[in-house]
């Protein structure tokens, strides 16, 4: 345990994150609509010691009922349209939709059109665009912090 905590202390010193930016809070809910899983890896990394999304007042929550922002990954498969709509409907207002990665923005690698209902814009109005394949944790953090700052 001591070794693990010591490694974490070292990681936090190395990351040297800016802690002055907290200006509010925002709860995020993620829905995977057919991503390759790389966006999920990077989103998970934003919550790790190297990026520490929570320091900005941003955090992932377990239910769309607690969320301000719906973070959508993937090109939106026909099979995920209904679960996506259900998650959006469960959110309290005001609510925002973020497209995470190139796929929901409709500029990802092609797939069989018959299996896709996306891009996301066809289904929900997109407020925040985070391009990249996948966007890096630093880019995700910056885009979300910007969105929070604009609304604060």
């Amino acid at each position, binding site marked *: 345990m001591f070794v693990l905590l010591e490694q974490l202390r070292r990681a936090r010193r190395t990351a040297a994150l800016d802690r002055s930016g907290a200006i509010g809070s925002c709860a995020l809910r993620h829905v995977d609509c057919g991503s390759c899983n790389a966006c999920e890896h990077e989103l998970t990394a934003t919550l790790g010691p190297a990026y520490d999304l929570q320091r900005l007042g941003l955090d992932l929550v377990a239910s769309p009922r607690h969320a301000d922002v719906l973070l959508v990954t993937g090109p939106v498969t026909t099979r*995920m349209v209904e679960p996506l709509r259900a998650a959006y409907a469960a959110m309290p207002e005001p609510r925002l939709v973020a497209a995470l990665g190139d796929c929901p923005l409709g500029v990802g690698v092609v797939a069989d059109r018959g299996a896709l209902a996306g891009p996301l814009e066809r289904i929900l109005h997109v407020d925040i665009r985070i391009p990249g394949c996948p966007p890096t944790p630093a880019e995700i953090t910056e885009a979300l912090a910007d969105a929070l700052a604009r609304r604060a």
Partner: protein
Amino acid sequence: MRREGSPARPRLEYVAATSWRGEVERALARGLRFRCAYAGGEGERSWSALFGDGHEELLLRTFASGDVPAVDSVVDLVEAADWDEREAHDLGAIEFEGRASTRPLLDHSQPSSAWAVPVAGAGVNQVAVGPVHAGIIESGHFRFHVVGERILHVDPQLFYKHRGLERAAEGMRPAAGIAIAQRACGACAVTNSVAFAQACESMLGSVVDEPTRRARTLLIELERLYNHLHDIAAICAGVGFAAGNMAFANLKERALTVNRLLSGHRFLFGSVALGGNEIVPGAPAVEEARARLSELGADIAAAWRALDFAATVQVRLTGAGVLSRERAEELGAVGPAARASGVERDARTYAPLLHYPAFRQARIDRPSGDCSARLRVRAAELATTLETLDDLLQGGVEAGSAVQRANADGAADVGAAVVEGPRGETVCVVEGDGARLRRFHLRTASYANWPALAAATAGELLPDFPLINKSFELCYACVDR
């Protein structure tokens, strides 16, 4: 005959529908293992199954007959073919005769009574989870049949992420299709693209040179490194051990920065090409990567010792989610999950198209098939992977190319490859020619292991499912395709 140092190209044998079962039985009796089965393109009515042992690969093919296309089922001979048959039933509309039932696998239009195993009795309840989960998890649905807290049976209903990637690749040039194979899964991008490239090269009758083999091996091991670190972090999260979760997440982050240094991409996207490799990092980058990996290796070893002696963690893992060796064999489990159950199989032990000159499979003391064994296997494999990486980087990374094989077995219209990725053997079959892919089939290690995960879950407590799930840490993306 196959020459030394070149892989076996699949030998295609057409089989009459009436002797399908007999030929499958013969292949198995000769010691060949079931690798994958797939239906042909639209209107083709063909049904093919690949068997092999690395030295010999046999592709059996028959044609579904009758007004409603039908083939004899072989699930009683090869339990591992269960999902393959159900997939072909749902996508290719082939009926499989002799099965007790062909429950829908990809077809989501039917009620749960059609796709879930019927379970009856006093106090049996169903618990539905997903497709949207509470954490940052891929989409998929689980239907648990429980009595109290205890799981009798679980039916995973996946394919929410089905993007029709196999169909999308059909008609493409082989060199362009690699982008599709790679995007099947971010976490297995290298494994899937190397499997695709090797399958195409086998079809086209070309062999890659030494620098390409070394570069591909380097990429596969880099992929294994960050995935194993990620999986160990996930297992820590599965028992609520935050210090271990975060420490290993940070080690994974460091591995990803090495990936970026060497390939320009954290997940090594775009680094594999047909007939070559796309990465040629300069000598300074290679030296720096080697130094960083050496430092990382020391920290991984220290972190693993700390985790191995964290008694509160270990006690939660021991005995949880046991997959017996017998069931692992029957279900065709692969990779670390199979090795944790004592199945000593690793495609790296015979990989003439990659560079594993002195590969020795990492072994653990007690392959007990539980969450603890699946964790220990990964920790042991990390050491082997770091050694392999150091060896490869020491020799530098050069541009490579492919040479046309100058003998009679030139181009064929089918090719196959098996690559040992982080989660185990991934099989790729392609059909077509140099100009166009007619069929592309990808059966990843996760596809092979989902039924094994379901088997390991039976009899366990519902709150242990996240832990058991994470101990396998299977992808949804490359299963759903």
